[in-house]
């Protein structure tokens, strides 16, 4: 009966914009070859922020899991790197292993935390983060409360060290973006967006909720662990209060809300904006934080779907082939 209609997933526009995404990625990989060291270090910071934003969006934007405790994984990733490096594992390999260890931590915590809903989940994740911070602060091998340096990277010439760290960070960012893209592109994509909008209705249409939430939680644990480990590799020194600090959650929330929650492009936009604001205004201290808060409130009130919605509502097409479109056949 509807022979004249067909469902399409990509068109010329999505192919062109996907190509542009890939091109930007390639250009970013060449940055250390031509730029000053401080630019490379700044871009590394941007990439770690990007990872955090994308991961928090996966959790809260798609899974409806509003976590204020992702710093548990950020801190765990950083300290796991320190621990592995102390055991003699090469530092960059330790970063990768620490990210995997964070995923394992997420697997272990999931049965406990995913029972909780809404506000309980938010508080539960925060409690876990604080508990981990206390455990680390009590461990003298890991520097206790005063902090610890990452050994093993000081033998590399600083310019090369920054370049390697940047490449690894960019590599993680690209890997995670690709994973999220695949998640959205496969049939799970429609399901996780359905869960985002109405969990009960999604279940009534045959979507099994728990395994999808579990997958999102573990992915976010892996990504945030990587972000923590890479933050350490970038700054070479961490303290438990700051790496396990709740400010990470505030930053992630800011980036995702301002960029556009529950969209692929939004957190990328949010991370870039946050990075620029931090770069320009961080010297103003408390006023900078007040300004961030005011911006976040303004977005929540007046543009709840974030910056990306401005573009999304005007574009007659989508940038990435993750949706479905009904078109005349032929």
């Amino acid at each position: 009966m509807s022979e004249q209609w067909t469902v399409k997933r990509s068109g010329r526009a999505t192919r062109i914009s996907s190509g542009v995404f890939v091109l930007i990625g390639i250009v970013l990989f060449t940055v250390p070859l031509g730029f000053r060291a401080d630019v490379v270090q700044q871009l590394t910071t941007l990439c770690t922020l990007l990872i955090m934003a994308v991961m928090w969006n996966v959790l809260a934007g798609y899974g409806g899991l509003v976590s204020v405790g992702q710093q548990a994984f950020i801190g765990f990733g950083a300290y796991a790197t320190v621990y592995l490096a102390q055991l003699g594992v090469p530092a960059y390999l330790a970063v990768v292993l620490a990210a995997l260890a964070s995923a394992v931590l997420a697997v272990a915590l999931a049965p406990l935390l995913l029972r909780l809903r809404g506000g309980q989940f938010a508080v539960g994740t925060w409690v876990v983060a604080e508990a981990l911070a206390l455990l680390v602060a009590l461990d003298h091998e890991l520097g206790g409360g005063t902090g610890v340096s990452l050994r093993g990277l000081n033998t590399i010439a600083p310019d090369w060290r920054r370049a390697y760290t940047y490449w690894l960070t960019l590599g993680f960012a690209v890997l995670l973006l690709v994973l999220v893209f695949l998640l959205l592109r496969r049939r799970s994509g429609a399901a996780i967006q359905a869960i985002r909008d109405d969990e009960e209705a999604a279940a009534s249409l045959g979507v099994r909720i728990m395994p999808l939430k579990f997958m999102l939680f573990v992915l976010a644990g892996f990504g945030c662990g990587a972000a923590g480990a890479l933050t350490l590799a970038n700054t070479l020194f961490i303290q438990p209060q700051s790496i396990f600090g709740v400010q990470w959650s505030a930053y992630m929330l800011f980036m995702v809300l301002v960029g556009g929650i529950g969209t692929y492009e939004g957190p990328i936009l949010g991370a870039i904006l946050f990075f620029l604001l931090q770069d320009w205004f961080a010297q103003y201290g408390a006023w900078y934080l007040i300004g961030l808060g005011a911006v976040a409130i303004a977005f929540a009130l007046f543009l709840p779907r974030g910056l990306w919605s401005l573009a999304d509502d005007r574009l007659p097409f989508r940038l990435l082939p993750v949706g479905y479109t009904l078109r005349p056949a032929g």
Partner: protein
Amino acid sequence: MSPILEGSGLSMRYGDLQVLTGVDFTVGEGEAVGIVGPNGAGKTTLLNVLAGAVRPTAGTVRIAGRDVTRARPDQRCRLGVGRAFQVPRPFGGMTVLENVVVAASYGAGLRGPALSRQAADVLEECGLTELANRRAESLGLLHRKRLELARCLATGPRVVLLDEIGAGLTDAEAAELVSAVRQVRSGDIAIVWIEHIVHVLVQVVDRLVCMDTGRVIADGEPQAVLGDAVVIDAYLGKAAS
């Protein structure tokens, strides 16, 4: 007619509130059953229990003879129970088509061209083809209700549970919805339909069940049930007398 969906001895209580008391309810394959009753009679709770959204405090639910009392809503959906909510619950951030795609891929287990076909067919059946690429949150009430029905049908159900899908619509809009539901009937999908607009309901159903204070007080041929003194007293009240 062998029952496709069967609830026996269903009771539900929330704290001190007894919402259902020993309700027996069956729907035969391809049968259309209407449920009427005053507000608070337990109609929506019965639907929730049948769909698996809540677990009854006593009693069993069977789908085609199989005990599903402990099965989750998504499992029941895949076994053939489709559901349309009283207040439509579209996935607002997704397009109309994507809403239907979720149902066709997870509820009906379809992939590739079969998924595409099912989604396009259901949209056409429910008159949503023109709106397929719009965000669901931009739809008005009638179209939201149609989408609710479309999603439910896209899961490839053997029985659909419809909760007051006519509420809030004008007579003309309700008539449109009725013709859509009638089209559902022409396939052999069974229907359980809660509706206050009785004259709309009786155009479609084979059998009418009347509930009051958590019990079934009448069950039978529609005109007979509507003529029942107990039903008139409990539900239709002065307007009918």
